[in-house]
C-alpha cells in the first residue's frame, strides 16, 4: 500500500544517520558469515527511499559489503509509482531535496532536463508492484524493513495484516523502521524497540 506520494531522498536524515552509525554496522557484523543483506522498502512510492538506501550503502559501506549479495526490494501498491521508481529519473524539484551537491554529481547522470540514478546504484534495487497488506510472493527474509508513512493511511485491521506480513518476512534478527509519527502500539507483544536518534527501531520479540 502506498502511503503518500510526498517523499524525498533521505527523508528524515536522523533516521538515515542512525542506520549508518548504529543499525547497519551491527547488521553487517551479524551477517558476516552469510555475506548477504536484504532490505525491503514497503510503500516505496516513487523510489527515493530505495535509492537513498542504495546510495548510503555505496557511500559508507562499499568496502564492508564488497563481494556481498545485497538487494533492496521496493514495493508499492501504485503501479505508476513503481514504474516511476524503476525508471529512476527525477526532475529538478526532486533532486533539489535531500541530496548534497556532491551526491548529486556523483550518483546521478544528467539526462536532458532530468537526473538519472547511476546504473551501479540502480543495480541492487528491485521494484515490484505489491500490496503490503497481502502476503508477499517469494521467500526472502529481510534484515531491514522500512515501512514509513504507510500505516498512517491504513485502517486498523489492515495495519495488523501489514504487520503480520512484515513480521513473517523479517529475519529473526531483522529490524523494522516505521515513520516518525507511527508506532507499533497495536502489536507491542510482537516487537521490541530500540530508541536511537529519536527513532524506534523494532526487533522481533523473543517468542515464548
Amino acid at each position, binding site marked *: 500500500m502506498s502511503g503518500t506520494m510526498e517523499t524525498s531522498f533521505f527523508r528524515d536524515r536522523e533516521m538515515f544517520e542512525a542506520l549508518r552509525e548504529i543499525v547497519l554496522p551491527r547488521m553487517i557484523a551479524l551477517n558476516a558469515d552469510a555475506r548477504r543483506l536484504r532490505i525491503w522498502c514497503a510503500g516505496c512510492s516513487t523510489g527515493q527511499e530505495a535509492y537513498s538506501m542504495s546510495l548510503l550503502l555505496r557511500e559508507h559501506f562499499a568496502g564492508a559489503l564488497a563481494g556481498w549479495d545485497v538487494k533492496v526490494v521496493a514495493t508499492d501498491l501504485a503501479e505508476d509509482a513503481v514504474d516511476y521508481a524503476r525508471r529512476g529519473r527525477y526532475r*529538478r*524539484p526532486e533532486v*533539489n*531535496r535531500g541530496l548534497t551537491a*556532491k551526491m548529486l*554529481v556523483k550518483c546521478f*547522470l544528467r539526462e536532458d532536463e532530468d537526473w538519472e540514478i547511476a546504473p551501479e546504484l540502480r543495480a541492487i534495487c528491485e521494484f515490484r508492484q505489491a500490496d503490503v497488506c497481502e502476503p508477499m510472493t517469494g521467500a526472502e527474509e529481510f534484515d531491514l524493513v522500512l515501512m514509513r508513512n504507510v500505516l498512517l493511511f491504513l485502517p486498523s485491521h489492515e495495519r495488523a495484516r501489514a504487520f503480520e506480513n512484515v513480521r513473517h518476512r523479517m529475519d529473526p534478527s531483522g529490524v523494522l523502521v516505521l515513520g516518525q509519527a507511527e508506532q507499533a502500539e497495536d502489536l507491542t507483544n510482537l516487537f521490541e524497540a530500540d530508541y536511537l536518534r529519536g527513532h524506534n527501531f523494532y526487533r522481533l520479540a523473543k517468542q515464548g
Partner: protein
Amino acid sequence: MTALIVDDSRFMRAHLRQLLERIGVACTEAGDGAEALDTLRGTGNGYDFMLLDVNMPRMTGLECVKALRETGLGPEMKVMMVTTECDNSFIESALEYGADEFLMKPFTAEGLREKLAMMGLTA
C-alpha cells in the same frame, strides 16, 4: 546566524531574505560578486553563510567564490550557490572552486532549510 545574500535580482534577494528572517537569520544583501567581496572586506568576521547567485554583472558567482577562497576572506563562511545553472559539470566546477552546497532555482522554503542543515547550519 548571519547570511550574505548575493543576487542581482532584488526580488530574489527579498525572497531569500524573507525566508531566512523567518527562521531567525540576520541578512545583508549584495547585488553582485564584486559588491559581495567589498562587503566582506568591510566586516571583521564575515557571515555564517553566503547564498550566491551565478549569473550576475561585473563578477559572476563562480568568479566570486573562487576569489573568496583564494583571498581567504571569510574562511569559515559556508557558500551555497543558488542558481538555475545545474549541469553536473557546472556543479562540479563550483564545488572545486570552493562552494559548499548547491540549491537549484526554483526551490521551496523547506528545500532551503534542508540544504542549510546539510552544511551544518541550523537556525
